[in-house]
């Protein structure tokens, strides 16, 4: 039912976002179900009314995939949801994913005029609403364009690869996407937990949509091992290659005891649970071992995901151990908030120096030092300095190391003519073009570990550049 003019006026003055209902925290730590439920249609329309439809919308600048935000919000205001999702999908092939995992607070919403006095429009929640609306109703695949006869290989089915693949298919190119795992989605599949991004209900359906656009998925193929990039050109007849292999090489602390039983990289911990579904053991075969007390080292999104996963696996006490203060924590505010609500304990200005073994080689504790903040370092953040004599032993049985990932070296090692950056990244220009003709790259393999939406933006930009390149052939 359309809103009264008077009601609209009030909504336009509303300073805060409409809250999104979510599972109660005491209940949700016992399951892997998604935490927020999403807006219903009524709330979505009301929230959309908070958008002022700026003539010169700043929010769009904050969107790496260039979604026409005011246009899709206007369609929600008018309750034209089917047209709204179409508008959104003109630019974004993965709206249900983005509506859930994008850090909108530092992207589109940070530019929203409403944010100057109060909270910005809940752009992310509205995006999610439209995407879920369409998933519930049945997804429409746009008609295929004329085929160009050009062939593009995409390496890696994470956010960068999926975006580039979808866009290139819509431009009429033949697209084959290679994935090393038995399942598609990259970090969306193995990294982000079920309770933030449901795999079958959401991710798989967006992947199916990309397949529907004409992308041919080849799983269980490790580019660099099964087939090299050189062979993609020379033997498989591809005209261009996009590399979106992400940052999949886990970093460790380099302290004694890191190879004890009970120490996981966050990648291993999350892969076992998310991709291999260890939380359903023994119905699913892959196991995981967790002590009652768990320490997660690091304070990024991956650390929050690991800590919240540990709680759901039944850990009694889960600690975040971070060497700087709360201001420097790289995780999204929302993730930190959720972790705190769920009972994760934050140990800030604390740095591990050794993991201690019991008599059988299992973790029985972690020796840490208290830190204080000194002068800013190269990253511009205050440098943590150990406080002398502050060593203490943390009584934990499982340690998850979540201090970041480096690019996987498999492709750089096996591809000729690729110029590399620092820390094993592939060098690419603003359009994703690498030093080798016809080879493009984007996402974490170029930038080092960053966010899903930045990777998607890079995939989109590269797709456009690849299209231009193919037309020039």
């Amino acid at each position, binding site marked *: 039912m359309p809103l009264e003019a008077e009601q609209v006026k009030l909504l336009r003055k509303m300073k805060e976002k409409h809250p999104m209902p979510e599972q109660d925290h005491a209940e949700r730590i016992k399951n892997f179900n998604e935490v927020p439920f999403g807006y219903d249609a009524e709330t979505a329309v009301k929230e959309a009314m908070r958008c002022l439809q700026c003539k010169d919308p700043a929010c769009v600048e904050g969107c790496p995939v260039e979604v026409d935000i005011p246009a899709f919000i206007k369609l929600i205001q008018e309750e034209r949801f089917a047209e709204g999702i179409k508008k959104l999908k003109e630019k974004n092939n993965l709206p249900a994913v983005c509506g859930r995992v994008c850090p909108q607070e530092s992207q589109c919403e940070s530019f929203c005029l409403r944010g100057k006095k109060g909270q910005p429009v809940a752009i992310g929640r509205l995006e999610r609403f439209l995407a879920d609306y369409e998933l519930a109703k049945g997804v429409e695949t746009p008609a295929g364009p004329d085929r160009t006869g050009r062939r593009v290989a995409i390496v890696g089915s994470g956010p960068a690869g999926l975006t580039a693949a979808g866009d290139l298919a819509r431009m009429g190119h033949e697209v084959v996407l290679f994935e090393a795992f038995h399942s598609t989605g990259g970090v969306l599949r193995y990294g982000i937990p079920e309770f933030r991004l449901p795999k079958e209900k959401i991710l798989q359906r967006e992947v199916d949509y990309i397949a529907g656009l004409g992308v041919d998925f080849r799983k269980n*193929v490790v580019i660099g*091992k*099964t087939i090299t990039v050189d062979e993609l050109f020379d033997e498989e007849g591809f005209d261009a290659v996009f590399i979106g292999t992400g940052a999949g090489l*886990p970093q460790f602390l380099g302290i004694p005891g890191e*190879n004890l039983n009970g120490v996981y990289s966050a990648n291993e911990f999350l892969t076992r649970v998310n991709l*291999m579904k260890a939380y359903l*053991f*023994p119905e699913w*075969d892959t196991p995981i071992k967790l002590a009652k007390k768990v320490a997660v080292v690091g304070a990024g999104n991956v650390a929050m995901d690991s800590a919240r996963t540990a709680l759901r696996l039944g850990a009694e006490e889960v600690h975040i151990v971070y060497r700087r203060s709360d201001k420097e924590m790289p995780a999204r505010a929302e993730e930190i908030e959720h972790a705190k609500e769920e009972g994760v304990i934050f140990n800030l200005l604390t740095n591990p120096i050794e993991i201690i073994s019991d008599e059988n080689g299992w973790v029985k504790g972690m020796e840490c030092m208290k830190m204080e903040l000194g002068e800013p370092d190269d990253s511009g953040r205050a440098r943590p300095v150990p406080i002398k004599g502050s060593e203490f032993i943390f009584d934990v049985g499982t340690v998850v190391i979540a201090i970041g990932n480096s690019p996987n070296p498999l492709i750089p090692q096996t591809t000729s003519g690729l110029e590399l950056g620092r820390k094993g990244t592939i060098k690419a220009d603003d359009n994703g073009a690498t030093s080798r003709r016809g080879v493009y790259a984007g996402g974490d393999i170029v930038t080092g570990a960053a966010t899903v939406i930045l990777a998607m933006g890079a995939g989109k930009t590269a797709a456009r550049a690849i299209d231009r390149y193919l037309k020039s052939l």
Partner: protein
Amino acid sequence: MFKIVTKRVLSAVNKLMEIEAPLVARKARPGQFIILRVRENGERIPLTVADSSKERGTITIIFQEIGKTTKELGSLQEGDYLSDFVGPLGRPMELPSSGRVVAVGGGVGIAPIYPKVKAFYDAGLEVISIIGARTADLLILEDEMRAVSSELHICTDDGTKGHHGFVSDLLQPLLDDTSKKIDEIIAVGPLPMMRVVAEQTRPYGVKTLVSLNPIMVDGTGMCGCCRVTVGGETKFSCVDGPVFDAHQVDFAELTRRSRTYLDKEKIALEKFEHECRCGGEK
């Protein structure tokens, strides 16, 4: 899906399967491994490539039925399909250009040693092979090994075939024979065997290689589950190995890490066997 084109029962617990995987077969070289999943909710297990045929487009794997996944794999028949099969993973083994090599294979370790011996033999090297098993019935690939070895020595723990004793007993005289220099020793088998061989050859200063098979998940370097200390440094067996200098490997750590999930493995196996007995779904 990956078709099982051949299945052979090698012993009471060892089975051979030839799997249709043309992309993997085109690339596989001695020393490399594959990762497979039997079905949708299965775990990923690494197995060494025992043989490969570009022409047939197949990879041969040999496995010992120890846990749930290997027993389930063994229950499949020719014509059945595996849900996933990926490779070749790991670094291929480097071949010495000339000389005399001793290859030691124990138990199911004879399977991964075979393609290496074959590669040595094809390269014109002199290969002395030593193979051993707990008992004669468990000794696999005897004929195949004989065909590619200059000499083949056999032993069993219980004396039912060949020398009554361990592979190390047969290796000792070769180490002591100063008239015939050994350029390289490669040993593959259960961890205790590889550890014994490493300690045995260390005082002689003979280059000794082992092929490790630690617990893995992805096999492409992204999880770090298979980390192993080699020469004081942490290496990922899946991308830095699986073949390493035996004298540098921390076997105590590796043995400990390989036991991480023993209790869970038991639960999975008991569940599987119970379901089999009850005629439930496999």
